[in-house]
């Protein structure tokens, strides 16, 4: 009764989408995304589209146009270190601003957090995690480990069933994001059709180009008040090209580790230098700090192709 009486009053004539875009704080998040994340153009495009879809959906709701809550579960596929977790965090903020999740926190889990070790352990464990994620976003990293086809008694299946059920029945309460390598996620979806049909947004994360990785390196350094000199920048460019072909290349994460080691060499070089050091020396990485890396010698001893 009340709803019917209240409905005409609540329905507006028109919704200003631009105004909505600004006032909801979505614009802010998208700007942040552009500013903080280098490259990833297709991902940013997808997020922009998703934001537009949700804004329009909200506007439709305001005008009283019937619409089902859109399915918001997503899958993020891409190689390690391409920013899946970072984007998921932004996504949680975005969904919160738009009012599709109530609290907007991100709970990041892997198989270990969901699957138990003995019979009867999995269900409570999975439910515990789901309860913590309610009102926010549940980010399952390397989701394909949940499903182990070679072991039919694996408890992962149980976790999958509970997840599917919650993804269906509690669509208003939480959003699930599955993440992992593209090829293994494809196989995971192929063997779990329930997941594929419940996930509307498949977002692919491309690898960074060498130029983007160099810019990422500089941003990372700038954050800690460090910097390259010109030679060091060239050395870092060579480093990225050399590192990419070695095994276990993890995009931005490899760069971060490389910079940590370069800072180590930088520190010990300064320590060896006699006399006082100024702020400039303390904050500038030189070519030799980068060139000292094992990558230029062909990687770790056991990774070298011709020893």
């Amino acid at each position: 009764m009340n709803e019917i009486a209240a409905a005409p009053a609540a329905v507006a004539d028109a919704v200003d989408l631009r105004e909505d875009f600004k006032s909801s704080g979505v614009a802010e998040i998208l700007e942040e995304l552009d500013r903080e994340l280098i490259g990833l153009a297709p991902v940013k495009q997808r997020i922009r589209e998703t934001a537009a879809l949700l804004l329009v959906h909200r506007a439709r709701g305001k005008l009283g146009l019937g619409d089902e809550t859109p399915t918001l579960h997503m899958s993020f596929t891409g190689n390690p270190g391409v920013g899946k977790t970072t984007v998921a965090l932004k996504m949680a903020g975005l969904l919160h601003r738009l009012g599709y999740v109530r609290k907007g926190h991100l709970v990041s889990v892997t198989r270990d957090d969901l699957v138990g070790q003995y019979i009867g352990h999995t269900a409570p464990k999975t439910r515990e995690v789901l309860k913590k994620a309610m009102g926010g976003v549940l980010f399952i990293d390397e989701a394909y480990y949940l499903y182990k086809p070679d072991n039919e008694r694996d408890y992962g299946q149980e976790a999958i069933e509970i997840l599917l059920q919650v993804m269906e029945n509690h669509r208003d309460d939480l959003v699930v994001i599955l993440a992992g390598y593209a090829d293994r996620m494809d196989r995971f979806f192929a063997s779990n059709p329930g997941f594929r049909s419940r996930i509307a947004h498949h977002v692919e994360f491309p690898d960074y180009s060498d130029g983007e990785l160099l810019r990422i390196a500089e941003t990372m350094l700038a954050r800690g008040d460090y910097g390259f000199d010109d030679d060091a920048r060239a050395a870092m460019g060579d480093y990225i090209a050399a590192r990419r072909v070695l095994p276990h290349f993890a995009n931005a994460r490899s760069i971060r580790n490389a910079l940590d080691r370069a800072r180590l060499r930088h520190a010990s070089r300064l320590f060896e230098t006699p006399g006082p050091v100024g702020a400039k020396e303390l904050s500038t990485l030189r070519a030799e700090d980068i060139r000292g890396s094992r990558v230029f010698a062909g990687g770790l001893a056991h990774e070298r192709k011709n020893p």
Partner: protein
Amino acid sequence: MRITQGCFSFLPDLTDDQIRAQIDYCLSKDWAVGIEFTDDPHPRNIFWEMWGHPMFDLRDPAGVMLELAACRKANPDSYIKLIAFDSTRGFETVRMSFIVNRPKVEPSFVMTRTEVAGRTVNVAITRA
């Protein structure tokens, strides 16, 4: 006889939305919410059964409501209460508790007074 203990027990029963709002308040204070149930509401019975563990690290009442629904399904004709535990040093105790489920027919209690030596009176509360 309507059992009155904890918060809100002189008010009409809380609706689910009201319960959700109360849980939201507890969570905003960083209290851990737990569920307890019993079929023995005697005032001296301070140990109710626990329904699972107290729920730490929740952010949204939906998680508690999920467990409450499960508890109600398993014990439809019992007393169920929510307790909110504050782990702040110095408190480390239950800060709030309220009944969220009652049996259809609530038991009544009678008080018997026994005169003993002098003017002393012993009081006993027993189920009618």
